[in-house]
């Protein structure tokens, strides 16, 4: 069962401009087994999307540069691949769903052809075969194949996102990276899309990286979670570890700041302050300016990950010392 498909070690990515150096990703490590699905959770600017672009080999260079780390996919380091080989991988073995379904489709090309294009590119098939594969994919995501020749503007937001899912899955990828796949959608449509993604994952054993800020969406379709803050993973574990035994003050704060739909609360508990500026990160623990349990030690040295169990790790020197319910 546990066949490792992706293994990222100590990945760091920065953007260098004339004015400043933005440290977007600072030593991220995680791995993923076949059929597993990990949720990368964090707020705007945490470095989630840059991590995904790193895996896809799409970090714009310049200004972006990968300063350290390895990304092993099926045992080979993607960072050593030449561009030509990466092109074969992208859309084939690894594909990505971008956040905005409105802008990631070509407006002057029928949607069916956009799916067929990927099939033709990665498989040695005839145009007719590729078309029937594209039609099959449309049906699979719940769009009648009669709409093959329609253009993106003739579809609603939810349907466009399904077309994008169809494109991403057309070559049966080993790894699917979904960057906020449902953020632009309404709740009832989001429910449809999540159900679809979950079904496809079980059917094809596709591994998945889900990038989101929505802890509810993660609970629905992931089995592992990594909480990202200022370009670092500050807590990681199984869904159960994170949702029932969260340890990092940021993770706790994040859950507390959600309005609870099941209970009545008067005031939301907030995390004070703002996400730090990635061009000017604080010394020591990156969360220290906002942390209610911060001590002088937290502001001195870099904090390492501490393993609490085989699956659960946290980046905090005071773990277990404070009252988590407070």
């Amino acid at each position, binding site marked *: 069962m546990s066949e490792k498909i992706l293994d990222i070690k100590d990945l760091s990515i920065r953007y260098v401009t004339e004015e400043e150096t933005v440290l977007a990703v600072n030593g991220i490590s995680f791995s993923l087994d076949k059929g597993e699905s990990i949720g990368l959770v964090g*707020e705007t600017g945490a470095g989630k999307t840059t991590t995904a672009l790193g895996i896809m080999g799409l970090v714009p260079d310049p200004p972006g540069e990968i300063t350290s780390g390895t990304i092993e996919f099926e045992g080979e380091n993607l960072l050593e691949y030449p561009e030509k080989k990466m092109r074969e991988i992208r859309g084939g073995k690894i594909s990505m769903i971008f956040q905005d379904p409105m802008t990631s489709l070509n407006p002057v090309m029928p949607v069916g052809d956009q799916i067929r294009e990927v099939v033709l590119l990665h498989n040695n098939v005839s145009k007719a075969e590729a078309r029937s594969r594209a039609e099959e994919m449309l049906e699979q995501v719940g769009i009648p194949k009669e709409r093959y020749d329609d253009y993106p503007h003739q579809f609603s*937001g939810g349907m466009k996102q399904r077309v994008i899912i169809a494109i991403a899955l057309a070559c049966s990828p080993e790894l699917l990276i979904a960057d906020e796949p449902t953020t632009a959608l309404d709740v009832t449509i989001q429910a449809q899309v999540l159900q679809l993604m979950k079904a496809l994952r079980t059917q094809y054993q596709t591994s998945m990286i889900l990038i989101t*800020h929505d802890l509810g969406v993660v609970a629905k379709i992931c089995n592992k979670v990594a909480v990202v803050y200022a370009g670092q993973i500050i807590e990681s574990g199984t869904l159960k570890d994170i949702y029932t035994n969260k340890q990092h003050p940021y993770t706790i704060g994040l859950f507390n700041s959600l309005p609870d739909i099941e209970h009545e609360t008067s005031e939301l508990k907030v995390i004070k302050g703002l996400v730090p500026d990635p061009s000017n990160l604080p010394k020591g623990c990156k969360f220290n300016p906002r942390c209610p349990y911060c001590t002088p030690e937290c502001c001195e040295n870099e904090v390492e990950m501490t393993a609490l169990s085989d699956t659960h790790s946290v980046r905090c020197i005071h773990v277990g010392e404070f009252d988590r319910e407070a």
Partner: protein
Amino acid sequence: MAEILRVEELTKYFNTKSGLLHAVDGVTFSVEEGKTLGIVGESGCGKSTLGRVILHLHERTSGKILFNGEDISEVNAQKLHALRKDMQIIFQDPYASLNPRMTVGNIIAEPLKNYKLTKSKEESEKKVREMMDIVGLADRTYNLYPHELDGGRRQRIGIARALILDPKLVVCDEPVSALDVSIQAQVLNLLMELQKDRGLTYLFITHNLSVVKHISDDITVMYLGQMVEKAESNEIFRHQYHPYTKALISAIPVPKYNAPDNQIILKGEITSPINVGKSCRFAARCPYAKENCFNTEPVLEEVTKDHFVKCHYVKEINGF
């Protein structure tokens, strides 16, 4: 409690090339002073149009708007100017709703200038700085431009601008949708605090159900321009009687481990609001729809005390 706003059978149709678009269709409700009415629905249900029609940012097609007991359905420019002092709006997008070429201080001072409420520059500046303090904007941001601030702070500028005239009613159109969760919580707390201190009345328009539950006293659910269910906030989360509300609430992904998976997945998507016929507008997606639903429009009726539902078969579905 005094009723501050009442709308009766309010409609707004837009003429489009393909026909009449029923954006808001026969909406009736009232809000008491100091309370919050949450208006929930998905994109295209007419919730923003409703807020805008009340503020006369769009002119209504028919129906009545009463503010403080006075009929304001039709007002001239002069009256509207006076009215707007009491009715303000906070917009969804803190990036697009602020003039990028004005400083924070000038943006917030603009309404004061507009209404000639201050005698001198110094007085206006003092008022602006006080307001900035109230909404939690640091004094040093006074001379900054919007692009130098993050989304949460920008939304605070929008709030300060709306509140500097001391309005009675504030329409909040998705004020936290563009913000990160930790910032969203800060802004929600601020809005609730301001309401308590100043006795504000909010019309809170959003698609986010957990946010609306948190802030509202009463909730109205809209579907294709019409109200389909209305009740007190906690009541509606305990008992949903309309099939659409049931699906909407069950579709919220709960951030809990092993949350029970009892989602109702609706088929299809929101249908077109153009040239709607005499039918229940939800019928095409409703799991309980019968022939009758496609031929006659149901009425909004009170099923339990203060709980209104617009559905022919509400009794059968819910086993009353």
